[in-house]
């Protein structure tokens, strides 16, 4: 970037091939963008990342070669980047201003041990938990509960007892949040570990639930929920510096 070369005519002639090749690359990248969208190769968020990356490639290609920044003095690059930087700053500032803190509604987060008693005649699906006596059991396959808990039923591969005893206590996690891009729940008790993170399909009026097996019985206060929006993070209960 130190000005033009000594033989500018020869230099310009060489640039012809640079410009032509670059033009072909730009067209190819645009084609790739369109194919990615049509084929739906990735999920939405991944597509945006790919489009973002290809756009940057094309942007840099045009600015660096077509607009001669590669061969010009660096001050031109600085002037342009200054405007570009302010434009990007404006973009993020507007996003920040338009966003609000995610709100975890009153009683919008709860964790309770499951106390589903086994019932005869009820339909159970694989993975269901029931409380029988003092122990918890997990369904091995889909079935209709027979007359007694220990009675064998047809699993499709022969007669089997449909339940297996589990070690620990299954809990039901439920949450209801105004909006956000990401929800994260983790245990505050090191002796009773739990971590769950997911990105909701709908970013508004998020409701979700999950059943998970914990080492021992716990309550809502033993957990922390974090919800991220584009610009904000809501944590309940709030983190304290201890």
């Amino acid at each position, binding site marked *: 970037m130190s000005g033009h070369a000594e033989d500018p*005519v020869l230099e310009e*002639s060489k640039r*012809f091939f640079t410009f032509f090749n670059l033009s072909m690359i730009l067209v190819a990248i645009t084609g790739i963008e369109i194919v990615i969208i049509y084929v739906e190769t990735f999920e*939405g968020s991944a597509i945006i990342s790919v*489009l973002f990356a290809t*756009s940057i490639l094309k942007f840099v290609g045009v600015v660096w070669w077509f*607009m*001669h920044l590669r061969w010009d003095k660096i001050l031109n690059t600085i002037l*342009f980047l200054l405007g570009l930087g302010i434009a990007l700053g*404006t973009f993020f500032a507007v996003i920040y201003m338009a966003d609000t803190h995610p709100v975890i509604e009153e009683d919008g987060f709860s964790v309770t041990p499951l106390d589903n008693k086994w019932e005869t005649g009820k339909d159970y699906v694989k993975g269901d938990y029931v409380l029988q006596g003092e122990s918890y059991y997990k369904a091995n396959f889909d079935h209709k509960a027979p007359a007694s808990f220990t009675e064998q039923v047809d699993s499709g591969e022969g007669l089997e007892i449909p339940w297996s005893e589990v070690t620990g206590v299954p809990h039901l996690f439920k949450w209801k949040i105004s909006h956000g891009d990401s929800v994260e729940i983790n245990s505050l008790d090191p002796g009773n570990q739990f971590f769950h993170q997911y990105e909701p399909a709908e970013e508004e009026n998020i409701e979700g639930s999950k059943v998970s097996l914990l080492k021992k019985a716990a309550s809502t206060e033993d957990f922390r929920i974090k919800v991220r929006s584009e610009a904000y993070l809501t944590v309940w209960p709030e983190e304290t510096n201890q």
Partner: protein
Amino acid sequence: MSEAATHALEHHEPVTSTGIPNKKILMWTFLGSDCMFFGTLISTHLIYRKISGTVNGTPLDIRNIFDIELTSFSTFILLASSLFMALAVSAIHKGNLKSTRWMLLGTIVFGTIFLACQVYEFTHFVYHEGHELTLSTYQGEPHVFGSTFYVLTGTHGTHVAIGVFWLLGWLVYSFTGRMSTADAMDIECCGLYWHFVDIVWIIIFPVVYLMEYAF
């Protein structure tokens, strides 16, 4: 290349203390400021797209009216016009007036095709039966999408139109017999403007059009 042309290449424009010609530094400063201008328009479109994503309680599906094949073609045309522009700048630097003229003409033709596509697209959107997109409505219901979309793409189209007229001026000037390599810096500035219009579209195409197909 003739000796005269080589001499002409060494023709110096008035420069600032930075060693950069006045016109060039002015153009880069303008382009920096134009970045901010388009930055605000793109930001506004994206924010309103996010916070006003429904029409009558149902998600706004703008793919009903978008014609992605046409827009992809427009994008290709604009990218190709940038190649012509770069070659026009290269040709005038080398003193090749004939080549400069052809490359300028190519850029003008491709720029005009892009504008024609945009005019067709806007007309198609406004009169698309059942899915009319006007400045203030979508499907007859009040909605902000048309405002941000038309202002953003329309402003870009206006930039293209200004560029086409600017290039047309140079093409006409080239037939007066007065054009020489002394004009190289002016055509280079014109080229910088044209390439800038191209990179703005490089951002608008995925952000405004392709993104609608990502979800």
